[in-house]
């Protein structure tokens, strides 16, 4: 019974990584850049929900929607101000800028909300499920996290494959120059990618802070890095890959905590990543693209 419980917790943690990883992987696939500020948008989303719920006493769903809207705007603004002027610059310059934006967001949060940790009220009001006479307890947050991430995954897949904008994204990710020649507005497509990624970050913020209810300006940093690892693990640029990578990462992390060592959990996760990348350098579901000269 313990095993099932460890597994369910792992899937729940992994689902959060997966939602964050989706943001990383979409932006990487389309803009070919690592948006290291993504984790901090989660933190901003968390704080926005916290403020809406406690200062304006709005219902949780409305708060999440407001946070999604604000994070979307924030994502688009960051892209316009910090990344767009560097479109032609070497990828290293963009990477450094992204790290700069990440620090900027953390310190802004420090100024606005202060350094004292805040306790987050769960946006989920579901009672925990008690199965097998209470020997297996699954919290409401766990259930909602898993369901929401599955819905997002399906929704995103439909959006990318079935809508015109989504197909434009695929085109830009395949070949930016050719897409532009075919009449795709590359800048608008990249903006939309950032918008979707940031809205997902707000959802991730809501779920993550509900499951682990402490908010600090650095809340988003570590999950952001883990999710980046998940994205690489699954094959960066691939949407199902991010989902798979995230969930596997969460499960491996939790099972190694449970059966090997709580303090070596991270080391084991990264060791698995290295092994996977040695065997399959593009990640589990990553496609190998031959560049023709």
């Amino acid at each position, binding site marked *: 019974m313990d095993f099932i419980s460890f597994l369910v917790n792992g899937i729940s943690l992994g689902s959060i990584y997966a939602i964050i990883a989706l943001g990383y992987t979409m932006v990487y696939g389309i803009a070919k850049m690592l948006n290291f500020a993504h984790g901090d948008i989660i933190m901003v989303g968390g704080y926005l929900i916290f403020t809406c719920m406690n200062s304006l006493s709005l219902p949780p769903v409305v708060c999440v929607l407001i946070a999604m809207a604000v994070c979307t705007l924030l994502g688009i603004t960051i892209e316009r101000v910090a990344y767009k002027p560097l479109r032609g610059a070497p990828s290293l310059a963009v990477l450094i800028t992204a790290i700069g934006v990440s620090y900027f967001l953390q310190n802004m949060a420090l100024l606005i909300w202060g350094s004292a940790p805040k*306790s987050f009220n769960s946006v989920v009001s579901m009672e925990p499920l008690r199965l097998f006479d209470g020997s297996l307890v699954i919290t409401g947050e766990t259930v909602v996290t898993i369901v929401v991430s599955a819905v997002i995954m399906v929704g995103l897949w439909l959006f990318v494959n079935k809508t015109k904008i989504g197909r434009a994204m695929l085109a830009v990710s395949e070949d930016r120059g050719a897409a532009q020649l075919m009449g795709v507005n590359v800048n608008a497509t990249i903006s939309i990618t950032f918008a979707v990624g940031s809205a997902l970050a707000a959802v991730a913020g809501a779920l993550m802070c509900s499951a682990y*209810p402490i908010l600090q300006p650095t809340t988003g940093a570590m999950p952001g890095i883990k999710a980046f690892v998940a994205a690489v693990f699954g094959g960066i640029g691939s949407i199902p890959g991010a989902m798979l990578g995230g969930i596997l990462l969460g499960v491996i992390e939790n099972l190694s905590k449970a059966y090997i060592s709580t303090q070596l959990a991270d080391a084991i996760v990264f060791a698995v990543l290295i092994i996977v990348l040695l065997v399959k350098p593009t990640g589990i579901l990553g496609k190998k693209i031959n560049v023709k000269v």
Partner: protein
Amino acid sequence: MKKFIAAGLALCMALAMVACGGNTSSSASQAAGGASVTNTDGAIVIKMGGIGPVTGANAVYGEAVKNGAQIAVDEINASDSTVKFEYNFQDDEGDAEKAINAYNNLKDWGMQVLMGTVTTTPCLAVISETEADNMFQITPSASSTDVIVPDNVFQVCFTDPNQGVSAADYIADNGLATKVAAIYDSSDAYSKGIYDAFAAEAEVKGLEIVCAEAFTSDNKTDFKTQLQKAQSEGADLVFLPIYYTEAALILTQADQLGYEPTFFGCDGMDGLLNVKNFDTNLAEGLMLMTPFDATSEDELTANFVKTYEEKFGGTPNQFAADAYDAVYAIRDACVQAGVTSDMSVSDLGDALKVAITEVTMDGLTGSNMTWKATGEVSKAPIVVKIENGAYKQL
């Protein structure tokens, strides 16, 4: 055109160099003087530096120390004390390298004694500097035994082993539990230090540690696995030598799992009830060892809490109280040593490290506080239990 620019740049550089030269010479003269000035009402003014993290992840502790010390300085300067302070607090972001920079900045400013640093890691870096300069240093809250190795460094807070031993003794002597679990941060010297001493003492006292689970600073949001292990081992007490941020998560997750042991924390747990929006019902029955109880009706504490709330907003935690006591300890030692305005930093250090062992002080974090020459403070720990959302002294 190019020549103009070149000439302009050269001029700028020349000016900058002159400016730099000016700065160094003025700070050099300050350092060479190295002595306190006497102000108009005849009191000696000591330049006291402070170092701690006021930004970054540990900002909450640094802010508390900065503010707590400010209150003490203001009180002393407004009183008729024969020793007064000029106070300058620098940020170290909780980082060893930045702490050294802060220390050098303060030396340029003319610092004579150091109140800091707040956390252990930067403190370990700074002590080698103060030892070389023989500058008197008192740390309000860096609790590792390693920081008081040099003879010029003193502590206001308990050492980590001291807390671990006291906790094990208290649990065993009061029969709180037979099976104990511990969850600690193995990447943090504070947490690990307490746990090691606790485990050793628990063995002596016959407490059975059924499960000892560590976590690291990179992986400190999900504690369900650790709690589940403690639960299946049947632990009836969970010892948490960690800070309250993680403890709040542990309490929430234990509640979600329906696990209800007694939780027992150390001084890092203080602050839990002030986490904005935290459901204090979760902390009901939690016990902790703390040197400071902000709800105490003791006059000194009540005044301090009132001033703190007026000036900075929010209830002060034990870090603020430790800093307040640190400033008074420096003041008392200065008075005891009879410092004069012509003493160098090193002479001051020699005089103060003897004087502080002769001082007995009633502070916010304990009455009859005394210091050993090793740097360790002697005061009794207070164990409190959280009842109806407030501390109750046991």
